[in-house]
């Protein structure tokens, strides 16, 4: 069975994010005065053939530690998704209509 998984990669809190700071400065100068912090990470959508969701998640965690994430600088969160929600690798049109925030909220409620 193919499982959809979304991986969020973020810089550790102790690591300075020059990109995030530059974008924050741009927003502030554009009049968004309330911005206090902005940090940029990565979002990786995968579809993985696996026997079970548990096996899939374990496999994705291995992928994170092996390649997707640099443990020196970054941390990650793996979010499994049911069909049709959350992760949508290879389905850009579906992606566009699904704000990541909604999926993340749903995941944390799960």
């Amino acid at each position, binding site marked *: 069975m193919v499982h959809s998984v979304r991986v969020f990669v973020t810089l550790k809190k102790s*690591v*300075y994010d*020059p990109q995030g700071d530059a974008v924050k400065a741009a927003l502030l100068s554009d009049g968004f005065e309330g911005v206090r912090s902005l940090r940029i990470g990565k979002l990786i959508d995968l579809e993985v053939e696996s026997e079970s969701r548990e096996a899939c998640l374990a496999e994705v965690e291995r992928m994170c530690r092996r*390649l997707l994430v*640099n443990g*020196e600088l970054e941390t990650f969160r793996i979010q499994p998704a049911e069909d049709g929600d959350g992760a949508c690798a290879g389905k850009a049109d579906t992606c566009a209509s699904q704000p990541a925030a909604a999926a993340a909220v749903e995941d944390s409620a799960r």
Partner: protein
Amino acid sequence: MKYGVIVFPGGSAAPECVAALRHLGHDAELIWHGNPAVDPDAYDCLLLPPGHSYGDYLRPGAIAKLSPIMPSVQEYAAGGGVVVGFGNGFQILLEAGLLPGAMLINRSCKYVCRLQRIAVESTKSALTCGFQAADALLLPIAHRWGNYWVDDGTLERMEHNGQIVLVYGDPEPNGSLRGIAGICNESGNVVGTMAHFHRAVFEDLGSTDGVGAFASIASWVEKVRTGRNGRSAPSGRSEGSGRSVRDGHSARGGCCSCRGCDVAESAANMIAATSVEGGNARD
């Protein structure tokens, strides 16, 4: 002295590394990254060149660390072989865990390309053993991901062990922790730096301060060699003479028979063409 210069997909500077090494009278050949086995006796030094392998996708050096050749690079280093990375080569060594720490995007978020003042801080490494501590070098840098970072505990150990080998002078280019421009492993045989030493061996390019680094490597290799068993050159290899520059096909010898060799071979031919022209122009 014989160098193996590893060619990673999308990397750009392997040919110029070979050209520089041959200009200095060393033997050098390209090794395709798909080659799973490097004969440790065939090379005195493995050089991981600069140049955005895999388009710097994911993180610079991240994908290259999974190249088939990397386990044998690890073995080569573990056996005391000299492994040097410039620019992206340094990033690959970090990602592969051969050196501690990691690279962030430059603090300015800008691509920085210029001649940079860099000071030698430790002469413990194969790349710096021929310099004096505090020697100030003028070296080309060209990168967007050169903002070195490492955790406090590791930094302390590195300082204690003399593993911080090069530091930036003013103006500091990228926000690196403690101005770190180059580091080595504990035993000094694996060295990485964002400085492009190979571009500082031709007077026409503004600096020849890189020459000393290759002399350092040669003396390190010689020291290890005599210390070990008094053997002279690696088996069947003669000292480089520049002959191979004009030969034009000798770089082929270092490649495996995989399809990547076409890339390596065409790069080798390119070097042969440019080197000969360069030679004429210089003298």
